[in-house]
């Protein structure tokens, strides 16, 4: 075999290895940095709902969009995100819950998130320590706006678009 072909093959192989590595990185690029999403990316683009006043809470700006993700923002499961489908989500210490919380202040079947016509409702399932939407205690099915924290024990959850 000519020397030239061998040299090309040798370096070509190394380049191909790195092409593989970068293709892999390309595939996972999206959720490689999923944890560092800033507020400005989530906010409504200008011109969608009129001119936004500065300092307006992000939660208000996002109303009318459908929630696609449930994100755990505080507690032991912080960073977990659930892609929302059509099915309700149960939260509690029971093993068969959608979100299994190991928290001394959570009940076995603590709360439930139910979708109805594009809007998610939170409902307390008779927990001992209660479920809180922002600061108010949840006593019946309550609609959950985007970006408003649902608090269960030490865990805090939010709906995100």
């Amino acid at each position, binding site marked *: 075999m000519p020397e030239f072909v061998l040299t090309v093959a040798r370096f070509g192989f*190394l380049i*191909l290895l790195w092409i593989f590595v970068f293709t892999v990185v390309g595939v996972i690029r999206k959720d490689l940095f999923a944890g560092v999403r800033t507020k400005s990316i989530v906010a409504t683009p200008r011109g969608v709902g009129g001119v936004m006043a500065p300092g307006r809470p992000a939660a208000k700006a996002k109303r009318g969009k459908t929630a696609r993700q449930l994100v755990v923002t505080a507690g032991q499961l912080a960073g977990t995100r659930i892609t929302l489908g059509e099915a309700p989500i149960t939260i509690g210490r029971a093993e068969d819950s959608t979100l299994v919380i190991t928290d001394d202040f959570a009940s076995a079947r603590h709360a439930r998130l139910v979708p109805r016509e594009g809007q998610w409702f939170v409902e307390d399932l008779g927990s001992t320590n209660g479920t809180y939407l922002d600061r108010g205690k949840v006593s019946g099915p309550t609609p959950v706006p985007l970006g408003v924290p649902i608090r269960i024990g030490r865990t805090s959850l939010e709906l995100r678009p």
Partner: protein
Amino acid sequence: MPRVSGTKTGRNAELGLLALAMIIVAIYAAIVESNQLDKVTSTFWVPAALLSALFLGLHTVVRFVAPYADPVLIPAVALLNGLGIGFLRRLDIGDALGKKLDPPGIFGGLGGRQLAWTLISLILASVLLVIIRDHKVVSRYAYTLGLAGIVLVMIPAILPASISEINGARLWIRVGPLSLQPGEFAKIALVSFFAYYLVRKREVLSLASRRFLGLDFPRGRDLGPVVTVWLLSLLVLVFEKDLGTALLYFGLFVVTLYVATERASWLIIGLLLFFGGVYVAYLLGAAIGGPFANFYDRASVWLHPFDQENYFREFGSSYQLVQSLLGLGTGGLFGSGPGNGSPRFVPEVQTDFIFAGMGEEIGLFGLSALLVCYLLIVERGLRAALGVRDSFGKLVAGGLAFTLGLQVFVILGGITGLIPLTGQTTPFLSAGGSSLMANWLLIAMLLRISDASRSPVTGGPANQPGPKQPPVQLHGAMTEVIKP
């Protein structure tokens, strides 16, 4: 499980990456043959094609039983596994040429055996994926698994040396021509047990503590299990003469503890205990010898590999390490080309020192690509841990991913002289069935957990009929002020 429209499974990306990985493996085989035999034989593509068929099988299984599993894990591991087989085949050809024989067939030699082990490993991984549909099921058998893990670690220490000892380390069960390394399988069992134990205990471990020097230190009685595992791993170190395995188990426990409690003090305590223990073992080895002598020898080989005394020693000389360093040095930045080096100068190049052999031929440039592959596999494991929705899954995925990373660090640190050399296999590359099977099982578990973490929520026991009445209370709903 019904698919939710609009969510990507990533299966097609996986297939594409897998194809790319297999093309690279085939090209590697072609370059090896052209360098060694001066021609490319008509069958150079057969091992790569067989591997492609095997991985395609696994891909199909994943498509059905874990459709949302991470798309990157299988291709990255497949590349490493395939290049490992390619390198072993390269050794076979080299050996045959040295004896003026014809190169062995596709299924002969080290490469052929590794191909067979890959088949078995992939079958095991598929079976695990099919049987365990929900990783939470594993937590039911946590104590059984913990006991099994400890027994697996201890077996070689208890068995007579004639059965368990190879090259001075007692890690094996040898039955006829087969030798199994039970410790490899213990990793997965122990991770599951630690995860279960810590999910139960973490409140106590993280809440009851004393503050000292700005760090939260746990109470003495909560330290019990850590100290037990520490002692256990030191016993392994002394009786099985294996620092790597001891470091692996201890690091694994400390890190799962850290993940569970989110306290850096565990890491500090762990590192202090380990390095303290190792240093004391080193001093004891220097002073009294006995069971610690082997450890002292290894440390002095690591510190002074080019010393005449260490190099020409009868048993446990630094010859291997020196050859490995020289090989890596010869390879330089771009290597001598696949098939162009002389890996057989390094003893055990097919198992522990495979990275030294490959490094000579693909150079730093190629080795770092392989290392990034390992890094990406570990990253995907940690990502699955972040995404999964229960603590047990989080700890298992985090622990398994970390173990894989630590094992690569321990062996790579060993062959490059960063840490004392210990007998660890390089995951997916080294020749050897136990290591390959155990690591593929580990990947299967990560696939299962990443499937759980990436799949959108559908159905399940949560699907009870909701209240029929529309909600009356609109507590907490935002009122929007419309400005003119």
